[in-house]
């Protein structure tokens, strides 16, 4: 599904990613952990194609296509979804309108007709239940006046609505209370399938109590320095990141 080879990327001409390699097969859940400032979120933004994240070397192949050749919206329509660490507010645009526009943009690109109102409403209802959000909130402007937890639930809701192939969660767990964490995790677990893959970026191990990853990677200084199964996450929780830092000093 996703092959990242020797990825180097700069942010404001400063090298952040320095030769990162990662392969994700369909249906797999990968967690990326690591200390602050090692490039975890840069990886997420680079995959999504954010402006200002400049790839200087390496390749990213997604579903057999060169991802770096694609604009951010093309990547999204091809099935890459990024759940934002800081979801953006869009005043005056209702969540319902935002979602409809996003779904119809995909359909338009595929040459399909716009989604039927009844079909949309059914999907919406189902996915709102998944993240335990009241239907009323669809009429509010996207993320405006939402609490931190509501914003993150909204990200998972959107993810469910858009049916992506690759879901990237950028520190979705940060700032969540235990209830929101449970809801978000249950949403993700409900979406796991043989075809869909996840890349979960987190600073803390606690999210992985709820979402069982197939692989855990430790990122340090712009690279993946250690990979393992979920026991690696436990080890990080017990021992912290210092032993990683020392080993890679």
């Amino acid at each position, binding site marked *: 599904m996703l092959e990242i080879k020797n990825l180097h990327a700069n942010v404001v001409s400063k090298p952040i990613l320095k030769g990162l390699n990662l392969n994700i097969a369909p249906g797999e859940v990968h967690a990326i952990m690591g200390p602050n400032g090692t490039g975890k979120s840069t990886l997420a933004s680079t995959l*999504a*194609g*954010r*402006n200002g994240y400049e790839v200087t070397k390496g390749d990213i192949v997604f579903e057999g296509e060169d991802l770096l050749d694609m*604009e*951010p*919206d093309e990547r*999204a*329509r091809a099935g890459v*979804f*990024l759940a*934002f660490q800081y*979801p*953006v507010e*869009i*005043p*005056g*645009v209702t969540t319902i*309108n*935002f979602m409809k*526009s*996003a779904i119809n*943009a*995909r359909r338009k*690109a595929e040459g399909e007709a716009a989604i039927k109102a009844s079909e949309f409403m059914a999907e919406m209802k189902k996915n709102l239940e998944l993240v335990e959000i009241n239907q009323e909130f669809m009429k509010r*402007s996207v993320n405006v006046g939402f609490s931190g937890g509501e914003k993150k639930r909204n990200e998972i809701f*959107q993810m469910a609505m*858009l049916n992506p192939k690759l879901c990237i969660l950028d520190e979705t767990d940060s700032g969540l209370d235990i209830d929101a964490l449970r809801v978000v995790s249950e949403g993700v677990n409900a979406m796991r399938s043989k075809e869909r893959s996840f890349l979960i970026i987190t600073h803390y191990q606690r999210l992985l109590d709820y979402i069982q990853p197939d692989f855990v990677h430790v990122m340090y200084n712009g690279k993946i320095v250690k990979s393992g199964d979920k026991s690696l996450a436990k080890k990080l929780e017990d021992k912290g990141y210092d032993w990683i830092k020392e080993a890679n000093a």
Partner: protein
Amino acid sequence: MTRDEAIIKKHTEDGYKYGFTTDIDQERAEIGLNESTIRFISDKKNEPEWLLDWRLKAYDIWKKMENPDWAHLNIPVIDYQSISYYASSKKKKYKSIDEVDPEILKTYEKLGIPLEEQKMLAGVAVDYVMDSDSVFTTFKEKLSEAGVIFCSISEAVKEYPDLVKKYLGSVVPQRDNYFAALNSAVFSDGSFIYIPKGVRCPMELSTYFRINAENTGQFERTLIIADDKSYVSYLEGCTAPKRDENQLHAAVVELVALEEAEIKYSTVQNWYPGDKDGKGGIYNFVTKRGICEGNRSKISWTQVETGSAITWKYPGCILKGNNSIGEFYSVAVTNNKQQADTGTKMLHLGSNTRSRIVSKGISAGNSSNTYRGQVLIGPNAENAYNFSQCDSMLMTDRCGAHTYPYLDIKNNSAQVEHEATTSKIGEDMMFYCNQRGLSDEEAVNLIVNGFCKEVFNELPMEFAVEAKKLLEVSLEGSVG
């Protein structure tokens, strides 16, 4: 939607909005402006003596005035002696639509304007406008049943001289400003509306339904009077970019709301803005003002301004009646080399008067977009309240947005609130939309429509849909 489908849709679903044109054979006034030009105009229109005198007085005033230079606008020198002040209805017409600038036709198509209407707007000779007679007749009948007067101002001068004489110039006097004086001297035509006491006008009144609306563009004069406890909603303008051979437009609109009356005035202005380099384009100098004469009356202005090379326009309210309300909702979009200096004046004279100003400016290209608003609280305006919100959005690094709020408060019991924001269209907002699969174009439309929502909500439904579409077309390819 193909063009044919669009035509069918317009005719089957949209009700009707073609113009009603007849070619009246009239000669032009000689180029230039002097007393005899004004006599010529007045004579052509068979006007009574008092109106001729009124025009001549305005001309005298105008001669002594100077072009205003206080706006944040770069106005080229206008040679008033090289303009024809009585454009006859015999405009230069194209023989067929193939002669029209393809760029303009493309825009018409994007806006979904039917072919027949496209021809009319572009100035192609149209022999017959379908369906017009029957629609127009039903429309007229309905209004006259309600006792509503809706006619051209020339007709009103003949049929309702007392009303015209009483109110013409009562809100915007001849000496109000340079362009109002010019308009008073040479106004061509415009709408006249009178809503009798206690009548709620049974439909939204629109210029689309007025005979010869086409010819009244240059120096239009509109007068609307809402008698006690009446209500009217008036729609002016057209979303289609209308070409006009006259570069200078100086319209005057006067609204009078008597006791407990309400007037809602909505405008979509999309005159030709000139090309990408700023060549051509209409100069639009408009004076619009309403007076809440009676207690508990209300006047609400809503405007969507996307056209014209230069826009100079401050629709305002004189809140004279106690407990009267004035509102101003505006979206002004400038692109390429367009310049707009627009806003409102809220003059609180009566007690417990309230006003609300919501202005949304969007600047793209190399354009300049200015909000200028005055809130005056007079010494007798006890407990007056004003809320102003002025937001500007910049689409590029090359455009400008300016906000000039003037507050003049002469009564201590007043409560005045002002909020203003200026922001570049957010990279983070764009990326968020892109990441959900929306193209740049789709993202801009969504964000801009959200930004303007409060104003669009004030527009009558059908107008709001058109206005949204208009914004999309106006801002095409503008992010940078």
